[in-house]
């Protein structure tokens, strides 16, 4: 056995350990990798304001909620946020949670970003694993939740069909029990 073979087997071992470990995770906890989908109960998470008390999803039970996970570096988020803002203006009783997913150090930049887009909803921050609880893998990630706290629609990527989302919100606003 030559030294290159030993070193090569070492590299192979590193690959194997990573593969086995990740395979174990995937097999035993596959569900944790699945995005929250329509029909799931929305996790009871909290979102944090720049100042003031946090907003808990549980407190909003009885309202139709639209959560928008975004970040300042995300181009599709920039394109989608004005559409979300229009939905907010069109449905005043809709609770829109505009959630920045970046670290606390980016809070000021996030506020500036939202101000630049003339977003009227207060910006919230994910400080307690809300995005992870919704298993957000890519942004923008929109989640529509009914008055009972059940997820009704999930949209990932730029919001190109605002009308479809508006129709879903309208249906929930009119048919969900108060």
């Amino acid at each position, binding site marked *: 056995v*030559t*030294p*290159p*073979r*030993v*070193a*090569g*087997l*070492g*590299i*192979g071992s*590193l*690959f*194997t*350990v*990573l*593969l086995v*470990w*990740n*395979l174990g*995770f*995937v097999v035993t906890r*596959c569900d944790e*990798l*699945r*995005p929250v*989908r329509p029909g799931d109960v929305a996790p009871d998470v909290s979102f944090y304001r720049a100042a003031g008390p946090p907003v808990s999803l549980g407190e909003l039970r009885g309202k139709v909620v639209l959560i928008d996970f975004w970040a300042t570096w995300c181009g599709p988020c920039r394109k989608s946020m004005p559409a979300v803002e229009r939905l907010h203006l069109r449905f005043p009783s809709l609770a829109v949670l505009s959630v920045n997913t970046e670290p606390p150090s980016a809070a000021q930049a996030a506020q500036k970003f939202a101000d630049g887009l003339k977003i009227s909803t207060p910006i919230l921050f994910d400080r307690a694993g809300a995005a992870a609880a919704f*298993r957000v*893998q*890519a942004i923008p990630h929109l989640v529509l939740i009914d008055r009972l706290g059940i997820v009704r629609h*999930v*949209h*990932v*990527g730029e919001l190109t069909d605002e009308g479809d989302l508006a129709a879903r919100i309208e249906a929930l606003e009119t048919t969900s029990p108060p």
Partner: protein
Amino acid sequence: MKRALALLDRAGGMLVAPRTTLRALDRLNGSGAGDALWLLFLKVLCGELRILVAAFWTMIVVGFGPGVTLLLSRVGQAVSFDLILMLGAGVAVTLLAGRKRSTGRDFDLAAAAWVPVLVVDLAAGVVSTVLGIGLPPAVRTALVAVSLGWMALLVVLSVFVARERA
């Protein structure tokens, strides 16, 4: 099996006997880049398996388009730094090879010189994933510096090997 062992021999050789391995690779025209692509594939498969499964779930739960987008963006994130390094090293080797320049073989040597970056990255991945030890940013920066320094040495060796061509 033989081919896999030969691949591991060449990758291991870049760590313990780089000059000999680079000379051998230079004679095996086309092997360095091919090896690097296989190693990149293994890196994505072994290290990003959770993301691959999450993208698969996104395809099912949210839609095919968002799932594919997630997959491509995450795979792109995982390999883009490595590809840029290989490309940059390839340009450096071919520019410095002088009259013995052979662009294809120069880029092969450069691709082989990337192996230490992979090994350091894999080792850090094993420590942080399997042992559950989150590496502090300073340690991460130090590891990147070590791997890039190691690769730079191999790029210099690659230039010498390229200039020694008959």
